[in-house]
Protein backbone atom coordinates (compact mmCIF):
# COMPACT_ATOMS: atom_id res chain seq x y z
CA UNK A 1 0.00 0.00 0.00
CA UNK A 2 2.49 2.55 1.23
CA UNK A 3 4.83 2.09 -1.73
CA UNK A 4 1.91 2.44 -4.08
CA UNK A 5 1.04 5.73 -2.49
CA UNK A 6 4.54 7.18 -2.80
CA UNK A 7 4.81 5.88 -6.31
CA UNK A 8 1.48 7.33 -7.31
CA UNK A 9 2.04 10.68 -5.70
CA UNK A 10 5.42 10.77 -7.41
CA UNK A 11 3.79 10.19 -10.74
CA UNK A 12 1.07 12.65 -9.82
CA UNK A 13 3.59 15.31 -9.01
CA UNK A 14 5.47 14.71 -12.23
CA UNK A 15 2.26 14.57 -14.20
CA UNK A 16 1.25 17.83 -12.62
CA UNK A 17 4.06 19.34 -14.57
CA UNK A 18 6.39 19.67 -11.64
CA UNK A 19 9.75 18.02 -12.10
CA UNK A 20 11.62 19.05 -8.97
CA UNK A 21 14.80 17.57 -7.65
CA UNK A 22 13.34 16.15 -4.42
CA UNK A 23 14.70 18.64 -1.92
CA UNK A 24 15.47 16.61 1.22
CA UNK A 25 14.54 19.32 3.68
CA UNK A 26 13.31 22.54 2.11
CA UNK A 27 12.30 25.10 4.75
CA UNK A 28 9.24 26.51 3.01
CA UNK A 29 7.25 24.43 0.55
CA UNK A 30 7.66 25.38 -3.08
CA UNK A 31 4.72 26.99 -4.85
CA UNK A 32 4.47 23.94 -7.09
CA UNK A 33 3.93 21.73 -4.07
CA UNK A 34 1.39 24.05 -2.54
CA UNK A 35 -0.56 24.13 -5.79
CA UNK A 36 -0.28 20.36 -6.10
CA UNK A 37 -1.89 19.95 -2.68
CA UNK A 38 -4.65 22.34 -3.59
CA UNK A 39 -5.32 20.37 -6.74
CA UNK A 40 -5.23 17.17 -4.74
CA UNK A 41 -8.00 18.57 -2.56
CA UNK A 42 -10.23 19.39 -5.50
CA UNK A 43 -9.67 16.04 -7.23
CA UNK A 44 -9.65 14.11 -3.94
CA UNK A 45 -6.16 12.94 -4.75
CA UNK A 46 -3.10 12.27 -2.63
CA UNK A 47 -1.07 15.13 -1.25
CA UNK A 48 2.46 15.69 -2.57
CA UNK A 49 5.15 14.43 -0.26
CA UNK A 50 8.03 16.80 -1.01
CA UNK A 51 7.31 19.26 1.74
CA UNK A 52 4.52 19.84 4.22
CA UNK A 53 2.16 22.65 3.23
CA UNK A 54 -0.72 24.41 4.94
CA UNK A 55 -2.92 21.60 3.64
CA UNK A 56 -0.88 18.65 4.85
CA UNK A 57 -2.97 18.02 7.97
CA UNK A 58 -6.12 19.85 6.96
CA UNK A 59 -9.39 18.29 5.87
CA UNK A 60 -10.89 19.64 2.65
CA UNK A 61 -14.01 21.71 3.25
CA UNK A 62 -16.06 20.33 0.35
CA UNK A 63 -15.37 16.72 1.22
CA UNK A 64 -15.65 17.28 4.97
CA UNK A 65 -18.96 19.07 4.59
CA UNK A 66 -20.30 16.27 2.41
CA UNK A 67 -19.19 13.64 4.92
CA UNK A 68 -20.81 15.37 7.90
CA UNK A 69 -24.07 15.81 6.02
CA UNK A 70 -23.89 12.21 4.86
CA UNK A 71 -23.41 11.02 8.43
CA UNK A 72 -26.43 13.01 9.53
CA UNK A 73 -28.43 11.51 6.66
CA UNK A 74 -27.52 7.98 7.66
CA UNK A 75 -28.64 8.68 11.23
CA UNK A 76 -31.84 10.04 9.71
CA UNK A 77 -32.33 6.63 8.10
CA UNK A 78 -32.61 5.04 11.54
CA UNK A 79 -34.14 7.89 13.51
CA UNK A 80 -36.83 8.26 12.50
CA UNK A 81 -36.71 6.63 9.06
CA UNK A 82 -36.41 2.94 9.82
CA UNK A 83 -38.29 3.37 13.09
CA UNK A 84 -41.30 4.66 11.15
CA UNK A 85 -41.00 2.18 8.32
CA UNK A 86 -41.07 -0.68 10.80
CA UNK A 87 -43.28 1.08 13.35
CA UNK A 88 -46.01 1.59 10.79
CA UNK A 89 -46.00 -2.07 9.84
CA UNK A 90 -46.59 -3.47 13.32
CA UNK A 91 -49.85 -3.49 15.22
CA UNK A 92 -50.85 -0.44 17.17
CA UNK A 93 -50.09 -2.07 20.49
CA UNK A 94 -46.46 -2.65 19.54
CA UNK A 95 -45.51 0.52 17.69
CA UNK A 96 -43.57 2.01 20.58
CA UNK A 97 -41.60 -1.16 21.15
CA UNK A 98 -40.12 -0.81 17.68
CA UNK A 99 -39.22 2.81 18.30
CA UNK A 100 -37.69 1.90 21.65
CA UNK A 101 -35.62 -0.83 20.03
CA UNK A 102 -34.24 1.59 17.45
CA UNK A 103 -33.48 4.19 20.11
CA UNK A 104 -31.97 1.68 22.50
CA UNK A 105 -29.76 0.16 19.83
CA UNK A 106 -28.59 3.63 18.81
CA UNK A 107 -27.37 4.46 22.29
CA UNK A 108 -25.93 1.05 22.95
CA UNK A 109 -23.96 0.76 19.72
CA UNK A 110 -22.61 4.31 20.03
CA UNK A 111 -21.14 3.38 23.41
CA UNK A 112 -19.63 0.14 22.07
CA UNK A 113 -18.24 2.11 19.14
CA UNK A 114 -16.54 4.55 21.47
CA UNK A 115 -15.21 1.81 23.73
CA UNK A 116 -13.45 -0.21 21.03
CA UNK A 117 -15.90 -0.95 18.24
CA UNK A 118 -14.47 1.58 15.82
CA UNK A 119 -10.98 0.39 16.62
CA UNK A 120 -11.80 -3.26 16.03
CA UNK A 121 -13.51 -2.44 12.77
CA UNK A 122 -11.10 0.04 11.23
CA UNK A 123 -7.72 0.13 12.97
CA UNK A 124 -5.15 -1.47 10.68
CA UNK A 125 -2.10 -3.59 11.09
CA UNK A 126 -3.36 -6.24 13.48
CA UNK A 127 -5.28 -8.95 11.67
CA UNK A 128 -7.20 -9.12 8.39
CA UNK A 129 -10.39 -9.71 10.40
CA UNK A 130 -9.71 -7.79 13.62
CA UNK A 131 -8.47 -4.24 14.04
CA UNK A 132 -7.43 -4.42 17.67
CA UNK A 133 -7.65 -1.67 20.27
CA UNK A 134 -5.34 1.01 18.94
CA UNK A 135 -8.20 3.50 18.68
CA UNK A 136 -10.12 2.43 21.77
CA UNK A 137 -12.04 5.32 23.37
CA UNK A 138 -11.52 7.05 20.02
CA UNK A 139 -8.02 7.90 21.20
CA UNK A 140 -6.09 9.55 18.39
CA UNK A 141 -9.23 9.91 16.32
CA UNK A 142 -9.19 13.66 15.79
CA UNK A 143 -10.04 16.15 13.06
CA UNK A 144 -6.94 15.37 11.00
CA UNK A 145 -7.78 13.17 8.01
CA UNK A 146 -6.67 9.55 7.97
CA UNK A 147 -5.39 8.88 4.47
CA UNK A 148 -6.42 5.22 4.65
CA UNK A 149 -10.09 6.08 4.74
CA UNK A 150 -10.47 9.58 3.40
CA UNK A 151 -7.56 11.83 2.58
CA UNK A 152 -9.64 14.97 2.85
CA UNK A 153 -12.20 14.06 5.52
CA UNK A 154 -11.59 14.51 9.24
CA UNK A 155 -10.89 11.17 10.88
CA UNK A 156 -13.43 11.79 13.65
CA UNK A 157 -16.08 12.57 11.07
CA UNK A 158 -15.31 9.33 9.25
CA UNK A 159 -15.61 7.40 12.50
CA UNK A 160 -18.98 8.98 13.28
CA UNK A 161 -20.11 8.30 9.72
CA UNK A 162 -19.23 4.64 10.14
CA UNK A 163 -20.96 4.62 13.54
CA UNK A 164 -24.23 5.38 11.81
CA UNK A 165 -23.75 2.21 9.73
CA UNK A 166 -23.02 0.23 12.88
CA UNK A 167 -26.27 1.54 14.35
CA UNK A 168 -28.64 0.82 11.49
CA UNK A 169 -27.37 -2.71 10.86
CA UNK A 170 -28.63 -4.31 14.10
CA UNK A 171 -31.67 -2.05 13.94
CA UNK A 172 -32.61 -3.76 10.68
CA UNK A 173 -32.79 -7.10 12.49
CA UNK A 174 -35.62 -5.73 14.62
CA UNK A 175 -37.93 -6.11 11.65
CA UNK A 176 -37.87 -9.89 11.75
CA UNK A 177 -38.36 -10.32 15.47
CA UNK A 178 -40.85 -7.52 16.01
CA UNK A 179 -43.82 -7.83 18.36
CA UNK A 180 -42.47 -10.66 20.50
CA UNK A 181 -38.84 -10.32 21.58
CA UNK A 182 -37.84 -9.06 25.02
CA UNK A 183 -36.27 -5.63 25.06
CA UNK A 184 -33.55 -6.81 27.40
CA UNK A 185 -32.86 -9.79 25.15
CA UNK A 186 -32.49 -7.52 22.15
CA UNK A 187 -29.96 -5.33 23.92
CA UNK A 188 -27.94 -8.33 25.06
CA UNK A 189 -28.13 -10.02 21.68
CA UNK A 190 -27.01 -6.89 19.85
CA UNK A 191 -24.12 -6.32 22.23
CA UNK A 192 -22.64 -9.76 21.56
CA UNK A 193 -23.58 -9.72 17.89
CA UNK A 194 -21.64 -6.53 17.25
CA UNK A 195 -18.45 -8.12 18.52
CA UNK A 196 -18.96 -11.50 16.89
CA UNK A 197 -20.43 -10.51 13.55
CA UNK A 198 -20.42 -6.80 12.75
CA UNK A 199 -17.05 -5.46 13.84
CA UNK A 200 -15.07 -8.34 12.31
CA UNK A 201 -17.10 -8.27 9.11
CA UNK A 202 -16.70 -4.51 8.75
CA UNK A 203 -12.95 -4.94 9.21
CA UNK A 204 -12.74 -7.71 6.64
CA UNK A 205 -14.62 -5.70 4.02
CA UNK A 206 -13.57 -2.10 4.71
CA UNK A 207 -10.55 -2.28 6.99
CA UNK A 208 -7.47 -1.05 5.14
CA UNK A 209 -5.87 -4.46 5.59
CA UNK A 210 -9.18 -6.30 5.47
CA UNK A 211 -9.47 -9.89 4.30
CA UNK A 212 -12.05 -9.03 1.63
CA UNK A 213 -11.11 -5.42 0.85
CA UNK A 214 -10.40 -5.98 -2.81
CA UNK A 215 -10.27 -2.32 -3.81
CA UNK A 216 -7.69 -0.99 -1.36
CA UNK A 217 -5.91 -4.05 0.01
CA UNK A 218 -3.62 -5.52 -2.65
CA UNK A 219 -2.97 -8.48 -0.36
CA UNK A 220 -6.61 -9.25 0.29
CA UNK A 221 -7.32 -12.98 0.41
CA UNK A 222 -10.65 -12.41 -1.26
CA UNK A 223 -10.65 -9.68 -3.89
CA UNK A 224 -14.27 -8.76 -3.36
CA UNK A 225 -15.90 -5.32 -3.46
CA UNK A 226 -18.74 -3.87 -1.45
CA UNK A 227 -19.20 -0.17 -1.93
CA UNK A 228 -21.63 0.75 0.80
CA UNK A 229 -22.38 -2.41 2.71
CA UNK A 230 -24.31 -5.09 0.84
CA UNK A 231 -22.50 -7.77 2.80
CA UNK A 232 -21.57 -5.89 5.96
CA UNK A 233 -24.94 -4.26 6.50
CA UNK A 234 -27.71 -6.01 4.62
CA UNK A 235 -26.59 -9.61 4.31
CA UNK A 236 -25.32 -9.74 7.88
CA UNK A 237 -28.48 -8.25 9.34
CA UNK A 238 -30.82 -10.04 6.98
CA UNK A 239 -29.49 -13.55 7.48
CA UNK A 240 -29.10 -13.03 11.20
CA UNK A 241 -32.69 -11.86 11.25
CA UNK A 242 -33.89 -15.05 9.61
CA UNK A 243 -32.06 -17.27 12.07
CA UNK A 244 -33.21 -15.24 15.03
CA UNK A 245 -36.86 -15.26 13.99
CA UNK A 246 -36.71 -19.02 13.47
CA UNK A 247 -35.25 -19.59 16.92
CA UNK A 248 -37.70 -17.10 18.40
CA UNK A 249 -40.74 -18.69 16.82
CA UNK A 250 -43.89 -17.19 15.36
CA UNK A 251 -46.02 -14.49 16.87
CA UNK A 252 -49.09 -15.66 18.79
CA UNK A 253 -51.97 -16.10 16.40
CA UNK A 254 -49.68 -15.82 13.38
CA UNK A 255 -51.61 -17.08 10.39
CA UNK A 256 -54.89 -17.09 12.33
CA UNK A 257 -55.37 -13.53 13.55
CA UNK A 258 -55.03 -10.70 11.07
CA UNK A 259 -51.97 -8.55 11.74
CA UNK A 260 -52.34 -5.62 9.36
CA UNK A 261 -49.93 -2.71 9.51
CA UNK A 262 -51.43 -0.22 11.92
CA UNK A 263 -50.37 2.73 9.79
CA UNK A 264 -49.32 2.49 6.17
CA UNK A 265 -48.90 6.25 6.32
CA UNK A 266 -46.06 6.01 8.84
CA UNK A 267 -44.58 3.20 6.78
CA UNK A 268 -44.52 5.36 3.67
CA UNK A 269 -43.08 8.34 5.54
CA UNK A 270 -40.32 6.08 6.77
CA UNK A 271 -39.67 4.89 3.24
CA UNK A 272 -39.26 8.42 1.97
CA UNK A 273 -36.83 9.19 4.76
CA UNK A 274 -34.90 6.00 4.10
CA UNK A 275 -34.55 6.88 0.45
CA UNK A 276 -33.35 10.42 1.15
CA UNK A 277 -31.01 9.30 3.91
CA UNK A 278 -29.66 6.52 1.74
CA UNK A 279 -27.88 9.06 -0.43
CA UNK A 280 -25.68 9.72 2.55
CA UNK A 281 -25.28 5.98 2.90
CA UNK A 282 -24.33 5.29 -0.72
CA UNK A 283 -22.83 8.47 -2.16
CA UNK A 284 -21.28 9.22 1.22
CA UNK A 285 -19.40 5.93 1.06
CA UNK A 286 -17.06 7.56 -1.45
CA UNK A 287 -15.78 9.54 1.57
CA UNK A 288 -15.50 12.53 -0.74
CA UNK A 289 -17.80 14.63 -2.92
CA UNK A 290 -15.92 13.36 -5.94
CA UNK A 291 -16.59 11.62 -9.24
CA UNK A 292 -17.23 8.31 -7.49
CA UNK A 293 -19.82 9.81 -5.15
CA UNK A 294 -21.49 11.47 -8.11
CA UNK A 295 -21.81 8.15 -9.90
CA UNK A 296 -23.14 6.46 -6.77
CA UNK A 297 -25.74 9.19 -6.46
CA UNK A 298 -27.01 8.55 -9.96
CA UNK A 299 -27.06 4.76 -9.73
CA UNK A 300 -28.82 4.87 -6.36
CA UNK A 301 -31.53 7.10 -7.75
CA UNK A 302 -32.16 5.02 -10.85
CA UNK A 303 -32.10 1.60 -9.19
CA UNK A 304 -34.44 2.68 -6.41
CA UNK A 305 -36.99 4.36 -8.64
CA UNK A 306 -37.01 1.46 -11.06
CA UNK A 307 -37.32 -1.16 -8.31
CA UNK A 308 -40.18 0.69 -6.64
CA UNK A 309 -42.06 0.97 -9.89
CA UNK A 310 -41.34 -2.62 -10.86
CA UNK A 311 -42.67 -4.04 -7.58
CA UNK A 312 -45.76 -1.86 -7.84
CA UNK A 313 -46.44 -2.87 -11.42
CA UNK A 314 -45.95 -6.57 -10.67
CA UNK A 315 -48.67 -6.23 -8.04
CA UNK A 316 -50.79 -4.28 -10.50
CA UNK A 317 -50.59 -7.15 -12.94
CA UNK A 318 -50.95 -9.97 -10.41
CA UNK A 319 -53.44 -8.52 -7.90
CA UNK A 320 -54.87 -5.72 -10.01
CA UNK A 321 -54.01 -3.40 -7.16
CA UNK A 322 -50.62 -1.73 -6.77
CA UNK A 323 -50.22 -1.27 -3.05
CA UNK A 324 -48.42 1.47 -1.16
CA UNK A 325 -46.55 -1.23 0.70
CA UNK A 326 -45.56 -2.58 -2.68
CA UNK A 327 -44.08 0.69 -3.88
CA UNK A 328 -42.36 1.17 -0.54
CA UNK A 329 -40.98 -2.37 -0.41
CA UNK A 330 -39.72 -2.00 -3.95
CA UNK A 331 -37.95 1.23 -3.13
CA UNK A 332 -36.25 -0.27 -0.09
CA UNK A 333 -35.34 -3.39 -2.04
CA UNK A 334 -33.84 -1.23 -4.77
CA UNK A 335 -31.81 0.68 -2.23
CA UNK A 336 -30.59 -2.53 -0.65
CA UNK A 337 -29.54 -4.19 -3.89
CA UNK A 338 -27.78 -1.13 -5.30
CA UNK A 339 -25.90 -0.55 -2.04
CA UNK A 340 -22.85 -2.73 -2.76
CA UNK A 341 -22.91 -1.80 -6.44
CA UNK A 342 -23.65 1.92 -6.49
CA UNK A 343 -20.06 3.08 -6.77
CA UNK A 344 -19.04 0.50 -9.34
CA UNK A 345 -21.80 0.28 -11.96
CA UNK A 346 -23.13 2.54 -14.70
CA UNK A 347 -26.59 4.09 -15.04
CA UNK A 348 -27.71 1.22 -17.26
CA UNK A 349 -26.33 -1.29 -14.79
CA UNK A 350 -28.40 0.45 -12.15
CA UNK A 351 -31.56 0.10 -14.19
CA UNK A 352 -30.97 -3.62 -14.61
CA UNK A 353 -30.36 -3.91 -10.88
CA UNK A 354 -33.55 -1.98 -10.24
CA UNK A 355 -35.66 -4.41 -12.24
CA UNK A 356 -34.19 -7.45 -10.51
CA UNK A 357 -34.48 -5.76 -7.12
CA UNK A 358 -38.16 -5.16 -7.72
CA UNK A 359 -38.85 -8.72 -8.76
CA UNK A 360 -36.85 -11.18 -6.69
CA UNK A 361 -37.54 -9.90 -3.17
CA UNK A 362 -41.18 -9.64 -4.22
CA UNK A 363 -41.23 -13.37 -4.78
CA UNK A 364 -39.63 -14.01 -1.41
CA UNK A 365 -42.08 -11.82 0.49
CA UNK A 366 -45.18 -13.06 -1.30
CA UNK A 367 -44.46 -16.70 -1.98
CA UNK A 368 -41.37 -18.15 -0.33
CA UNK A 369 -42.33 -16.82 3.08
CA UNK A 370 -45.71 -18.52 2.85
CA UNK A 371 -44.27 -21.77 1.59
CA UNK A 372 -41.87 -22.11 4.48
CA UNK A 373 -44.14 -20.31 6.91
CA UNK A 374 -41.43 -18.60 8.95
CA UNK A 375 -42.62 -15.42 10.65
CA UNK A 376 -40.27 -12.78 9.28
CA UNK A 377 -42.64 -10.16 10.64
CA UNK A 378 -41.56 -7.18 8.58
CA UNK A 379 -39.60 -9.01 5.87
CA UNK A 380 -36.09 -8.20 6.95
CA UNK A 381 -35.00 -11.47 5.39
CA UNK A 382 -37.07 -11.14 2.24
CA UNK A 383 -35.79 -7.64 1.54
CA UNK A 384 -32.40 -7.25 3.20
CA UNK A 385 -30.92 -10.74 3.17
CA UNK A 386 -32.21 -11.62 -0.28
CA UNK A 387 -31.57 -8.12 -1.59
CA UNK A 388 -28.12 -7.90 -0.07
CA UNK A 389 -27.13 -11.26 -1.50
CA UNK A 390 -28.39 -10.50 -5.00
CA UNK A 391 -26.70 -7.14 -4.76
CA UNK A 392 -23.34 -8.57 -3.83
CA UNK A 393 -23.60 -10.97 -6.75
CA UNK A 394 -24.80 -8.39 -9.29
CA UNK A 395 -21.99 -6.10 -8.20
CA UNK A 396 -19.62 -8.77 -9.40
CA UNK A 397 -21.46 -9.08 -12.68
CA UNK A 398 -22.01 -5.40 -13.45
CA UNK A 399 -18.94 -3.64 -12.01
CA UNK A 400 -17.24 -1.68 -14.81
CA UNK A 401 -13.94 0.16 -14.99
CA UNK A 402 -15.73 3.03 -16.69
CA UNK A 403 -17.84 3.61 -13.60
CA UNK A 404 -14.99 3.76 -11.11
CA UNK A 405 -11.29 4.42 -11.79
CA UNK A 406 -10.36 2.52 -8.62
CA UNK A 407 -11.31 -0.73 -10.34
CA UNK A 408 -8.30 -0.32 -12.63
CA UNK A 409 -5.67 -0.71 -9.92
CA UNK A 410 -5.66 -3.68 -7.52
CA UNK A 411 -8.60 -5.24 -9.31
CA UNK A 412 -7.63 -4.72 -12.91
CA UNK A 413 -7.35 -8.48 -13.43
CA UNK A 414 -10.68 -9.16 -11.79
CA UNK A 415 -12.77 -6.53 -13.50
CA UNK A 416 -12.65 -7.33 -17.18
CA UNK A 417 -15.88 -5.54 -18.05
CA UNK A 418 -17.66 -8.78 -18.91
CA UNK A 419 -20.60 -10.45 -17.19
CA UNK A 420 -18.57 -13.42 -16.03
CA UNK A 421 -15.45 -11.55 -15.03
CA UNK A 422 -13.28 -13.13 -12.29
CA UNK A 423 -14.73 -10.67 -9.78
CA UNK A 424 -17.98 -12.67 -9.76
CA UNK A 425 -16.20 -15.61 -8.23
CA UNK A 426 -14.59 -13.39 -5.59
CA UNK A 427 -17.99 -11.99 -4.76
CA UNK A 428 -19.36 -15.50 -4.30
CA UNK A 429 -16.57 -16.23 -1.83
CA UNK A 430 -17.40 -13.05 0.07
CA UNK A 431 -21.08 -13.97 0.08
CA UNK A 432 -20.30 -17.42 1.41
CA UNK A 433 -18.08 -16.14 4.17
CA UNK A 434 -20.57 -13.49 5.22
CA UNK A 435 -23.38 -16.01 5.21
CA UNK A 436 -21.53 -18.44 7.43
CA UNK A 437 -20.43 -15.78 9.88
CA UNK A 438 -23.94 -14.38 10.19
CA UNK A 439 -25.72 -17.71 10.48
CA UNK A 440 -23.30 -19.45 12.82
CA UNK A 441 -22.72 -16.35 14.90
CA UNK A 442 -26.40 -15.59 15.33
CA UNK A 443 -27.32 -19.18 16.16
CA UNK A 444 -24.76 -19.37 18.93
CA UNK A 445 -25.55 -15.94 20.34
CA UNK A 446 -29.29 -16.53 20.22
CA UNK A 447 -29.05 -19.71 22.24
CA UNK A 448 -26.72 -18.08 24.74
CA UNK A 449 -29.16 -15.19 25.25
CA UNK A 450 -32.05 -17.64 25.45
CA UNK A 451 -30.23 -19.54 28.15
CA UNK A 452 -29.24 -16.47 30.12
CA UNK A 453 -32.36 -14.28 30.12
CA UNK A 454 -34.73 -15.80 27.61
CA UNK A 455 -35.62 -14.39 24.21
CA UNK A 456 -39.35 -14.05 24.26
CA UNK A 457 -41.98 -12.15 26.21
CA UNK A 458 -44.77 -14.01 27.98
CA UNK A 459 -48.01 -14.82 26.16
CA UNK A 460 -49.83 -12.25 28.25
CA UNK A 461 -47.34 -9.50 27.44
CA UNK A 462 -47.59 -10.38 23.79
CA UNK A 463 -51.40 -10.26 23.88
CA UNK A 464 -51.57 -6.97 25.74
CA UNK A 465 -48.84 -5.52 23.57
CA UNK A 466 -45.19 -4.72 24.18
CA UNK A 467 -45.76 -0.99 24.47
CA UNK A 468 -47.62 -1.19 27.75
CA UNK A 469 -45.92 -4.22 29.16
CA UNK A 470 -42.33 -3.48 28.28
CA UNK A 471 -42.29 0.29 28.12
CA UNK A 472 -45.29 1.39 30.15
CA UNK A 473 -46.64 3.69 27.47
CA UNK A 474 -49.22 3.67 24.72
CA UNK A 475 -48.61 4.86 21.20
CA UNK A 476 -51.72 6.94 20.91
CA UNK A 477 -54.15 8.45 23.40
CA UNK A 478 -57.46 10.11 22.70
CA UNK A 479 -59.00 12.72 24.94
CA UNK A 480 -59.39 12.14 28.66
CA UNK A 481 -58.92 8.80 30.33
CA UNK A 482 -60.61 6.84 27.58
Amino acid at each position, binding site marked *: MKKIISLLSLIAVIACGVCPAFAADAPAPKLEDRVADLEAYVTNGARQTNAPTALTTSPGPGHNAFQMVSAALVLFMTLPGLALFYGG*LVRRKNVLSVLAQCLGITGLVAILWWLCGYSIAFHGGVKPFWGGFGWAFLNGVDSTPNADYGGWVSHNVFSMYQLMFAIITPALIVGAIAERMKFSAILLFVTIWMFVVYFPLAHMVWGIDGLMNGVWNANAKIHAIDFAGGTVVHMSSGWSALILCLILGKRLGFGRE*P*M*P*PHSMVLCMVGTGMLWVGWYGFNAGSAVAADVVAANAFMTTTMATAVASFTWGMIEYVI*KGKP*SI*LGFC*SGAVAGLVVITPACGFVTANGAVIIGIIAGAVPFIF*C*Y*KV*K*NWFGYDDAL*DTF*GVHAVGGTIGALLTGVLARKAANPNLSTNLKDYVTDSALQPLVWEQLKAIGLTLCLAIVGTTVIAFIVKAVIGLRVSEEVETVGLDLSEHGEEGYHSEGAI
Partner: protein
Amino acid sequence: MKKIEAIIKPFKLEEVKDALSEIGVEGMTITEVKGFGRQKGHTEIYRGSEYTVDFLPKIKVEAVVADGRLDAAVAAIVKAAKTGKIGDGKVFVSKIDEAVRIRTEEKGEQAV
Protein backbone atom coordinates in the same frame (compact mmCIF):
# COMPACT_ATOMS: atom_id res chain seq x y z
CA MET B 1 -90.76 6.23 25.66
CA LYS B 2 -89.02 4.17 23.05
CA LYS B 3 -85.45 3.90 22.02
CA ILE B 4 -84.72 3.66 18.31
CA GLU B 5 -81.38 2.14 17.36
CA ALA B 6 -80.58 2.45 13.67
CA ILE B 7 -77.55 0.90 12.04
CA ILE B 8 -76.90 2.79 8.81
CA LYS B 9 -74.30 3.36 6.15
CA PRO B 10 -71.88 6.10 7.21
CA PHE B 11 -72.43 8.42 4.30
CA LYS B 12 -76.19 8.43 5.04
CA LEU B 13 -75.76 10.02 8.45
CA GLU B 14 -76.37 13.59 7.36
CA GLU B 15 -79.62 12.67 5.61
CA VAL B 16 -80.92 10.64 8.51
CA LYS B 17 -80.09 13.41 10.93
CA ASP B 18 -81.95 15.97 8.82
CA ALA B 19 -84.91 13.67 8.41
CA LEU B 20 -85.20 13.25 12.17
CA SER B 21 -84.81 16.95 12.86
CA GLU B 22 -87.57 17.70 10.37
CA ILE B 23 -90.08 15.62 12.28
CA GLY B 24 -88.94 17.31 15.45
CA VAL B 25 -86.59 14.79 16.98
CA GLU B 26 -84.12 17.18 18.50
CA GLY B 27 -81.72 14.81 20.10
CA MET B 28 -79.77 11.75 19.12
CA THR B 29 -76.54 9.99 19.88
CA ILE B 30 -74.22 8.61 17.23
CA THR B 31 -71.64 5.84 17.49
CA GLU B 32 -69.09 4.57 15.01
CA VAL B 33 -69.60 0.82 14.80
CA LYS B 34 -68.59 -2.05 12.58
CA GLY B 35 -71.21 -4.28 11.08
CA PHE B 36 -71.33 -7.91 10.15
CA GLY B 37 -74.14 -9.20 8.00
CA ARG B 38 -75.07 -10.20 4.50
CA GLN B 39 -73.03 -7.48 2.93
CA LYS B 40 -69.61 -9.01 2.64
CA GLY B 41 -66.35 -7.35 3.54
CA HIS B 42 -63.14 -7.25 1.56
CA THR B 43 -59.70 -8.80 1.49
CA GLU B 44 -56.42 -7.04 2.13
CA ILE B 45 -53.00 -8.42 1.29
CA TYR B 46 -49.88 -7.06 2.91
CA ARG B 47 -46.72 -8.47 1.40
CA GLY B 48 -48.37 -11.81 0.80
CA SER B 49 -50.01 -12.18 4.22
CA GLU B 50 -53.64 -11.97 3.24
CA TYR B 51 -56.67 -11.51 5.47
CA THR B 52 -60.33 -10.62 5.18
CA VAL B 53 -62.09 -7.76 6.87
CA ASP B 54 -65.62 -9.03 7.55
CA PHE B 55 -66.64 -5.95 9.43
CA LEU B 56 -67.81 -2.94 7.55
CA PRO B 57 -67.94 0.57 8.97
CA LYS B 58 -71.46 1.57 9.98
CA ILE B 59 -73.03 4.30 12.05
CA LYS B 60 -75.38 3.61 14.89
CA VAL B 61 -77.97 6.30 15.55
CA GLU B 62 -79.75 6.15 18.89
CA ALA B 63 -82.73 8.34 19.57
CA VAL B 64 -85.16 8.11 22.45
CA VAL B 65 -88.58 9.37 21.46
CA ALA B 66 -92.03 9.68 22.96
CA ASP B 67 -94.23 6.72 22.04
CA GLY B 68 -96.39 8.97 19.88
CA ARG B 69 -93.45 9.91 17.72
CA LEU B 70 -92.13 6.40 17.24
CA ASP B 71 -93.67 5.43 13.92
CA ALA B 72 -92.93 8.76 12.28
CA ALA B 73 -89.33 8.57 13.41
CA VAL B 74 -88.79 5.00 12.24
CA ALA B 75 -90.38 5.82 8.89
CA ALA B 76 -88.20 8.88 8.51
CA ILE B 77 -85.03 6.93 9.23
CA VAL B 78 -85.88 4.11 6.87
CA LYS B 79 -86.70 6.58 4.12
CA ALA B 80 -83.51 8.56 4.55
CA ALA B 81 -81.14 5.63 5.02
CA LYS B 82 -82.37 3.52 2.17
CA THR B 83 -80.25 2.93 -0.91
CA GLY B 84 -81.86 -0.39 -1.77
CA LYS B 85 -78.47 -2.00 -1.82
CA ILE B 86 -77.49 -4.76 0.53
CA GLY B 87 -75.99 -3.42 3.74
CA ASP B 88 -78.44 -0.59 4.30
CA GLY B 89 -78.83 -1.68 7.89
CA LYS B 90 -81.51 -2.10 10.50
CA VAL B 91 -83.74 -0.23 12.87
CA PHE B 92 -84.41 -1.71 16.31
CA VAL B 93 -86.99 -0.44 18.76
CA SER B 94 -87.02 -1.10 22.49
CA LYS B 95 -88.71 0.27 25.59
CA ILE B 96 -87.20 2.92 27.84
CA ASP B 97 -88.51 2.97 31.38
CA GLU B 98 -87.19 6.33 32.40
CA ALA B 99 -85.26 9.29 31.08
CA VAL B 100 -83.59 12.15 32.94
CA ARG B 101 -82.13 15.36 31.59
CA ILE B 102 -79.06 15.82 33.67
CA ARG B 103 -78.98 19.60 33.43
CA THR B 104 -82.51 20.16 34.72
CA GLU B 105 -83.26 16.79 36.25
CA GLU B 106 -86.53 16.82 34.31
CA LYS B 107 -87.87 13.33 34.01
CA GLY B 108 -89.83 11.36 31.43
CA GLU B 109 -90.88 12.55 28.02
CA GLN B 110 -89.96 16.18 28.53
CA ALA B 111 -86.42 15.04 29.20
CA VAL B 112 -85.86 13.75 25.69
